[in-house]
């Protein structure tokens, strides 16, 4: 089993790079004939990743969420998998390379530094923690995909405004579609983050008797939640359209990424496990 895990640890970044390369070729080359092949390869990569995550969980007797690099591989998987589902549902295939780039980065870093950890803190074996982290990671994947679509929206918006009919104009879906995809992934991300926060709040008092609601991680998470929540309400009430909502979403993403890094910057946070 250990050999298989080590083998998959090498194979996965290669598979992600190959998948990413296919998406790049399909994006830049007319009539490349890769439209269906790239989707199949992405599916195979995601399936292989499932086996890898299961194998790690079984072999090391804990879900792969105990170190930064285990988190990275789960994040790579959840981004790729979420995108795969989004592509399947919407049949918009032009944005894949921008999203899969994140999966490639996370998986390459993870594969380079990940270690075989058998001994971990008892708190990290908790099932509630597993649900909390996995829902948070899926939530972060959602807001990452939303941010990428938001960024693409802004680029396409600028191109159309300036009458620059480049490859971006030719390949990306319409502004309305990008906005819709960004908003749908944002809603999904927001709901999963809400779930993660809820699990965290329920589980927190039992797991950490010395916790504080003034912890910087909790404050920044609450801020992220409020920014996204406000953005969603404004969008749903029809007050703002397009670009303004996208800027809101991007601002939320930047705060969320900052919040994600807080646990490492402020060592005093109870949220620092590694």
């Amino acid at each position: 089993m250990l050999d298989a895990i080590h083998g998959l640890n090498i194979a996965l970044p290669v598979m992600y790079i190959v998948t990413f390369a296919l998406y790049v070729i399909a994006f830049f080359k007319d009539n490349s004939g890769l439209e269906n092949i790239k989707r199949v390869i992405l599916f195979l990569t995601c399936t292989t990743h499932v086996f890898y995550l299961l194998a790690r969980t079984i072999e090391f007797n804990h879900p792969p969420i105990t170190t930064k690099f285990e988190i990275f591989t789960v994040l790579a998987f959840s981004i790729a998998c979420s995108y795969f589902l989004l592509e399947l549902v919407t049949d918009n295939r032009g944005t894949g390379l921008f999203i899969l780039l994140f999966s490639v980065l996370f998986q390459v870093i993870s594969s380079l530094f990940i270690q075989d950890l058998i001994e971990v803190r008892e708190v990290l074996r908790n099932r509630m923690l597993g649900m909390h982290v996995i829902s948070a990671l899926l939530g972060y994947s959602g807001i990452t995909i939303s941010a990428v679509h938001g960024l693409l929206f802004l680029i396409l918006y600028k191109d159309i405004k300036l009458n620059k009919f480049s490859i971006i104009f030719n390949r990306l879906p319409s502004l309305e579609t990008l906005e819709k995809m960004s908003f749908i992934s944002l809603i999904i991300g927001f709901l999963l983050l809400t779930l993660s926060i809820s699990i965290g709040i329920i589980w927190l008092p039992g797991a950490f008797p010395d916790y504080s609601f003034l912890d910087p991680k909790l404050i920044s998470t609450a801020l992220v939640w409020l920014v996204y929540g406000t953005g969603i309400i404004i969008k749903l009430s029809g007050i703002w359209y397009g670009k303004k909502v996208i800027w809101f979403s991007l601002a939320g993403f930047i705060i969320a990424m900052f919040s994600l890094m807080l646990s490492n910057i402020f060592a005093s946070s109870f949220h620092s496990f590694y």
Partner: protein
Amino acid sequence: MNIIGISINHRNSPVELREELHLNREEIIDFIPKLKDHISEGFVLSTCNRTEIFGAPHSEKVDVAGIIDGLKSFKPVNNFGEKNFDRYFSCGAVKHIFAVATGIDSLVLGDSQILGQVKEAVELSKDLDFAGTITNRLFDTTIKVGRRAIKESLIGEGAVTVSYAAVQVIEKIFANLDKKHALIIGAGETGELAAIHLRDKGVGLITIANRTYEKAEKLAEKIHGDIIPLKNVAEDLHHFDIIVSATSSNDFIVNYDDVKKMMRKRRGAPVCIMDIAIPRDIDPKVTNIENVFYNDIDSLQIIVKQNMKKREKEIPVVEEIIMEEMVQYFNWYNTLEVVPTIKSIREFFEDIRQDELSKIKHKVTEEDYAKLENMTRRMVGRLLHNPTMKLKEIAESGANANQITTQTLIAKELFGINNENLRTEEQDSNWHKN
């Protein structure tokens, strides 16, 4: 191969002449019987940009002048001379008609309508009994070539007209066109074309505004749209997600303040403004307003030029398809050579049999003669069975032209047959029945 083609197109004739020579369906129906004096089977394709006459002449002598004179007398036009038409023969004719069907010979490279027009011309020819063995196969292959070009190349991709480029930009802004409301200002030719494109793309509701109410009414009826008076346009702008303006007005019809007011009423909801008029109908400064996507003719021409370049790059791909299909077509055509060879060999044997029988006719009884006649018929039949089947097999297997020519030549040489007979329609139909 005995196929000829006469082409009056954008390269050899000015638009006025092409328009004058254009034959509508009824005219083609009347013209084909006259054409039958010169061509045994063929078709006539006539669009606003080209008139093509193709077919197989009755004999080896090709009477192009006769066909041209026939066309001139049918549709008298001034200044129509030698320089206004191209002639094609044999391979050149086949290659040309394939090129026409793929759109690489069109004024608008990769024209998407030409294949449909070729199909119509072919159908009409069949309906008028003007299609024979050679042209039927040529028709089928022509349609196949056209379809392959669309499927296997990007020759028809992208907008190559300003009004279609406008639709391409609109599609980059909005996803659900069925929920959008479009306003067309100006019911002239350009406005009409834009309205038709938008309707074809499934825009939910199209409203027409025009200086002449009757013209607006006519276009609205054609595209099942609404009408608003031109004077109300500025006030009602906020109802529309897409605005296409194509009038001949010398002043702005929609100015900056109108659009500013419109955006306030729309609470910033995006709007796409396509100004395809010269001089412009809408103040270009509106492009500075948030969520207003403004394009004029110059910016749309950028898309047109880009797409034309892409299509030009596809020409070699299409030419490759044409070559492949030409090879297959001529392979098939060459197999037809086998039919007269088989017939000649059979006639040769039958002559010998009859000759030998005549020598003994008066030396034997009638009963014996009948037996001998039966016996020799069976013998010749058995002797010729294998060579006949073998030649048919070669033809039906789609073997290459050289092999077929060699085999038929050997067969002719062996029996000393010098068959220069041309295939007749009867032979052709017999061959296909077999």
